């Protein structure tokens, strides 16, 4: 219990102190210490191994309520100030709904906090990956041009974010869940508009209103829950299983789709690219979007078959479509962003499947996706800061200048698709699971097709990037120095990936043989050869006998606008189907 309390409060404290410190050295040291402690705490919590449940003191609830109202008022003010009607209206709507909910009197809930297996894993991801990203951000933000206070504020916000995320994955109370949900919305809003320019403000507003739809959804679920069962407890909600319970769940699923930036809502996540890169890193890997599969995972046991099928179908559809959409993009972070959207689709699809294996699969996907995406976004930041590369078309002579970044990008992508990395196993067992489910519903054939197609499109996507980074000529290196914190944070994530692989062995019969022998053969033998190759005679590329170097660009497989719109409609239709399924 105290561990969890610490996990919830320590980042807050860290954030507060950092805001006050002026010296960069001291700030970095403090941040580092906080991160180390957080990591230790989350590991301790994980190894602790038991489910922890407890209730929070009642006084806190009052504070929460006040916070909620303040927050909504803030949104309302932002909406009016920025003249954004959707923001203002949604804030108003939420305010009304919230006031309505808080007027009712649910039964006292036995526990506000419940930390089970899923939560423990989520805590690990949030604190370790998030912590590393914060360390990276220390270096990153220093190279921005802004006041000291603002820089420190940035770090503080990130810590605050960790705290909120820790809360969201540990709470079992819909009310607290709502607060945390809204807090993430607020934080993402603040972080996205951090640079303060025109584009940043516009994108932040968009993120704000889209995320508020999720808030409305949660409030609706709360109302249904309170009205029908007089409870705000997640656990309770899951056990009721009657039609109203399903309706509440369906509404909550919408909240998940919004946070997961699933198809019709993907714009807010892509818009978040304007923020400093650590923000994208943290949004995509450790925080925010991971709420989506988490919610579905939590709700899945209570799904009706129809809900389970439609959510799976929706997820796999998003997986495929988002991958295809990414193929036409040129902005590196946008590519990463859409691939996140796609993979979240996969996670949600798997989470919704009613099978015991699915939990394990989704967790593995969450963990490895978090690490890989963090690694990739760190590289995106490094490329921006050290080389001023943002678009694929800028990537020139990267390998010659910084082979480390290239290999990190390669590993980041590889770990999303290839054996022996974890995400591969996640996908692999997803497919196995789906195939074994075909006999239950022919729908799974369609899902299977979507997912296999999506996977190849993603592979295509990763290689589209690798085309630009991998290629290099013989000789001639003009290496560029990468700042130490950048490098170490990347290595740390790489280390995590490796540890992850080792921990994977034994899961589902993935034996040492399957993992290590191929890895050994594939990687070690060539590495042994490497030294011999180093000293071989070099020859130029074949250019039809000519000497002039030809330009090698990237490939784009852009979907026509109309198709994208159609995909959005299809996704919206599926969402409507989910709602409908809940209602019936």
């Amino acid at each position, binding site marked *: 219990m105290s561990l969890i309390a610490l996990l919830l409060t320590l980042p807050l404290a860290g954030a507060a102190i950092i805001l006050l410190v002026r010296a960069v050295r001291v700030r970095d040291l403090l941040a580092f210490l906080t991160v180390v402690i957080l990591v230790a705490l989350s590991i301790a919590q994980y190894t602790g191994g038991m489910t922890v449940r407890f209730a929070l003191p009642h006084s806190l609830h009052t504070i929460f309520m006040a916070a909620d109202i303040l927050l909504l008022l803030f949104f309302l003010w932002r909406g009016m100030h920025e003249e954004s009607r959707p923001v203002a209206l949604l804030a108003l709507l939420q305010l009304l709904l919230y006031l309505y909910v808080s007027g009712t009197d649910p039964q006292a809930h036995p526990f506000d906090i419940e930390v089970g297996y899923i939560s423990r894993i989520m805590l690990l991801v949030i604190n370790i990956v998030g912590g590393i990203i914060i360390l990276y951000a220390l270096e990153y933000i220093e190279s921005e041009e802004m006041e000291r206070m603002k820089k420190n504020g940035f770090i503080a916000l990130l810590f605050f974010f960790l705290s909120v995320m820790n809360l969201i994955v540990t709470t079992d109370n819909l009310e607290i869940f709502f607060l945390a949900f809204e807090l993430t919305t607020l934080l993402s809003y603040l972080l996205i508009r951090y640079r303060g320019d025109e584009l940043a403000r516009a994108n932040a507003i968009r993120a704000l209103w889209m995320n508020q739809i999720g808030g409305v959804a949660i409030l609706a679920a709360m109302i249904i829950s309170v009205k029908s069962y007089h409870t705000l407890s997640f656990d309770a909600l899951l056990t009721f299983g009657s039609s109203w319970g399903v309706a509440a769940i369906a509404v909550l699923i919408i909240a998940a789709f919004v946070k997961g930036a699933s198809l019709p809502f993907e714009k807010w996540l892509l818009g978040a690219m304007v923020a400093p890169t650590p923000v994208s890193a943290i949004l995509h890997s450790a925080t925010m979007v991971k709420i989506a599969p988490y919610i579905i995972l939590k709700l899945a046991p209570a799904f009706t078959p129809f809900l389970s099928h439609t959510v799976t179908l929706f997820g796999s559809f998003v997986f495929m479509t988002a991958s295809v959409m990414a193929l036409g993009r040129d902005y590196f972070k946008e590519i990463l962003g859409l691939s996140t959207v796609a993979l979240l689709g996969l996670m949600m699809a798997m989470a919704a499947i009613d099978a015991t294996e699915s939990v394990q699969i989704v967790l593995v996907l969450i963990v490895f996706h978090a690490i890989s995406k963090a690694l990739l976004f760190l590289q995106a930041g490094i490329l921006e800061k050290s080389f001023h590369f943002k678009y694929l078309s800028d990537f020139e002579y990267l390998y010659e200048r910084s082979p480390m970044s290239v290999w990190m990008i390669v590993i980041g992508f590889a770990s999303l698709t290839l054996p022996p990395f974890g995400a591969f196993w996640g996908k692999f067992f997803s497919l196995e699971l789906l195939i074994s489910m075909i006999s239950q519903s022919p729908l799974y054939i369609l899902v299977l097709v979507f997912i296999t197609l999506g996977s190849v499109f993603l592979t295509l996507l990763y290689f589209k990037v690798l085309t630009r980074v991998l290629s290099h000529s013989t*000789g001639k290196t003009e290496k560029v120095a990468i700042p130490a914190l950048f490098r170490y944070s990347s290595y740390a994530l790489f280390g995590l990936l490796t540890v992850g692989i080792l921990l994977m062995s034994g899961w589902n019969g993935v034996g040492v043989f399957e993992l290590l022998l191929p890895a050994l053969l594939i990687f070690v033998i060539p590495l042994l050869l490497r030294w011999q190759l180093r000293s071989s*005679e*070099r*020859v*130029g590329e*074949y250019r039809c*006998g*000519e*000497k002039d170097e030809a330009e090698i660009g990237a490939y784009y497989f852009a979907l026509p606008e109309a198709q994208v719109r159609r995909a959005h409609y299809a996704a919206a239709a599926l969402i409507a189907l989910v709602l409908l399924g809940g209602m019936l």
Partner: protein
Amino acid sequence: MDFSRYRKRSPWILHYNAGSCNGCDIEILAALSPRYDLERFGVLNSGNPKQSDIFLVTGPVTYRSRERLVELYNQMPEPKVVIALGSCTCTGGVFRGMYNVEDGIDRYIPVDVYIPGCAASPELIIDGVVQALDILEKKTKERENAKRLYSEPTTENGITDRSNSAQKIGTGGFSPEEMKPNSPERRENEED
């Protein structure tokens, strides 16, 4: 292990036209066609210098093809043989002494086999290839440098880099006297 005897069983061909009338080039195609079927000897028309053993050149070397000729030659891994196919490739043939040709490819790269004929018939091409195979078998793996337009491969830390070995010819390359076919200096230059 000594694999040199397999060289003659698997000669892959790179064909380059250094300014011929394409009469001989058509005959190469004819030699690959069912009637003569060069593939009987394991010949593959690889079209890629890096995977070829026999450099089959036609044409008397026009100015613009000089540099390409040397570049392709350099990209071929040793052991390799060069076949000059057709009279104009051997000595310039009917183009000998024209202002934009170099009178035979052996001004630029070392030639192992000369096939006469204008055009050299598939029969002669097969004869030449068979001859070349014997030579190929006896060759060593030592690097043979092209004769002209050649900057030594750069060697750094023990790594030899032949990626930029053919130089663009500039006006400063040779004096007009040197370019005359039978000037004595010109031949001397090539000896060393």
